[in-house]
């Protein structure tokens, strides 16, 4: 019972939050809503017994990623409403609804319900974090290491890209001229 209530509340909240993200004109609102949505998503993880992931979701998404976005936003003018030339809304809605339905049909189709054998079954008498640790450092060790390298690379790339000539205010017009000349 508790689970049902939690599920519906989280669902409503996350859907609402994400809808704001998608529909809002103000970038600041959108970002705040996204951060909220992320946290509600982590709620699902907790319900589903994936505590570790829930925590990771909060720290990485709501913490790190949102912080990054927030810093990023400082470069842009966020007080103004985002001016967008939005065309063909109907197509967008139709397509997304269509794809949602199709995905649903596929996912809920009978073949899915046929028995699937667990490759890495949950281990009895162990907490979620222990289980993840066991699998992560045995079967998924190499991808895990690769992921760490990827993160390192991404970090360096982010710094290099964003910090290049950070101290110099680039004249927009000059730069575009340079770009044109290069072309």
């Amino acid at each position, binding site marked *: 019972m508790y689970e049902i209530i939690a599920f519906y509340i989280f669902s409503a909240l996350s859907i609402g939050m994400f809808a704001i993200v*998608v529909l809002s004109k103000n970038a600041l609102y959108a970002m705040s809503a996204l951060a909220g949505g992320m946290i509600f998503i982590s709620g*699902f993880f907790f319900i589903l017994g*994936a505590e570790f*992931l829930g925590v990771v979701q909060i720290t990485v998404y709501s913490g790190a990623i949102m912080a990054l*976005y927030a810093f990023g936003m400082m470069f842009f003018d966020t007080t103004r409403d985002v001016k967008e030339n*939005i065309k063909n809304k109907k197509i*967008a809605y139709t397509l997304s609804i269509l794809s949602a339905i199709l995905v649903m049909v596929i996912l809920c189709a009978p073949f899915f319900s046929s028995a699937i054998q667990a490759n*890495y079954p949950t281990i009895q008498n162990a907490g979620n974090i222990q289980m993840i640790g066991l699998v992560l450092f045995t079967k998924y060790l190499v991808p895990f290491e690769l992921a760490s390298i990827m993160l390192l690379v991404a970090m360096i790339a982010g710094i290099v890209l964003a910090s290049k000539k950070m101290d110099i205010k680039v004249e927009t017009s000059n730069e575009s001229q340079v770009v044109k000349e290069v072309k």
Partner: protein
Amino acid sequence: MITLTHYLVLVGILFSIGLVGVMRRTNLLMLFFSTEILLNAVNVGFVAVSNYYGDLSGQMFAFFIIAVAASEVAVGLGLLILWYKRNGSIDLNSLQSMKG
């Protein structure tokens, strides 16, 4: 009782919201946000399946997706800032150099 189907329906809804964002928004930052929504939707799906079938792979995938999302944001934002510094705009309509 909340079944897997419930979760899948939810994932579908979230995913379609993400899709709407991807298609509708032309501001690049907003596009990034929408992408995050898509990733999150999928993550929920993975974890749900993982839970209902008692298989840890789903959680592992979700975990890696989060890692990928983090690096994507790091690099993506860097690029975005660079672009903004050059063009003063992060509107999609301003980058059409790939016109065929």
